């Protein structure tokens, strides 16, 4: 069951991201996606395998759901949140997009416990909120850095 839910969610998020009026160009989107992916993979590995704060299932189907969440769903929610932030001129809407993405990431991550993918040992949703707020911050800083670099190179070429 869980694989259907998370696969459909991943598909929906990909569809939403493509359909959005995205202000990030291909290179910026790729860089933000890859940095978020690397951060998500490394942090989840440290939390699960090294610190054993979260226990992950050994059932194949549920394990694939975990991989989908870690490597597709999480970076995509971050990307959609980022895209909404960039699109908006209004500070309140920017902040709402940031908070909305963090809340959605937390809800999806916590839903893994419902499907028996995760068991929180020494972990709870407050830590999730902090983790995802930091992940969003990493994405914002990456975008700002790469966007400035891109602009500088574009100026050089003209």
């Amino acid at each position: 069951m869980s694989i259907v839910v998370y696969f459909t969610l991943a598909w929906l998020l990909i569809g939403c991201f493509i359909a959005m009026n995205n202000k990030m160009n291909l290179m910026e989107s790729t860089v933000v996606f890859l940095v978020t992916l690397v951060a998500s993979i490394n942090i989840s590995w440290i939390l699960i395998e090294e610190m054993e704060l979260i226990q992950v299932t050994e059932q194949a189907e549920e394990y694939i759901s975990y991989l989908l969440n870690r490597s597709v769903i999480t970076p995509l929610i971050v990307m959609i949140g980022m895209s909404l932030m960039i699109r908006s001129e209004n500070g309140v809407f920017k902040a709402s997009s940031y908070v909305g993405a963090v809340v959605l990431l937390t809800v999806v991550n916590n839903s893994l416990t419902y499907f028996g993918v995760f068991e929180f040992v020494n972990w709870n949703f407050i830590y999730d909120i902090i983790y995802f707020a930091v992940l969003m911050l990493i994405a914002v800083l990456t975008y700002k850095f790469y966007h400035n670099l891109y602009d500088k190179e574009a100026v050089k070429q003209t």
Partner: protein
Amino acid sequence: MMLWEEFDRNEIFVIAMLIIIYAIFFWMPKLFPRHITLLFLLIGFSIPILFDFTIGGGMLNFYQVNDSNAYELTDVLTYFNFAPFAYFYIYFYVKFNINKVTFIPYTFGWTVIGMVLEAVNKFMNVIHYQNGYELYYSVIIFIVVLTFTGLFYELVKKKDPTF
């Protein structure tokens, strides 16, 4: 997370490779704008991480990088070693004017280079196969990743007005 389990030949090899690869990277004449260089370095860094933490760890656990399944500093250095390879692939792709006809032999050539480097890594104890994984399975990974990288470069070339 630890620095390493035992400082022996795999650590020496990883550090030596790091110095050689980045010396070559900085020595080569620059061909791309900085944002493109950074993009392909990031692709070279993140794709091995995606594979290592998906099929090389967790449930499948087909291979172990360096001395143990635990996360070591040497593992991070190993991923930094991979980063310039996507850049080199694109660099010579442009230098040799690779087109639709030469794309297949070029990508096969890089697959052979990748296999040789992986065999050397295996010999130097950087990578240890387990749970039935064999060196030749990596051919699939190399072909997929290199093809994706080449096609992605073509897409970037079309979309980026700074080219």
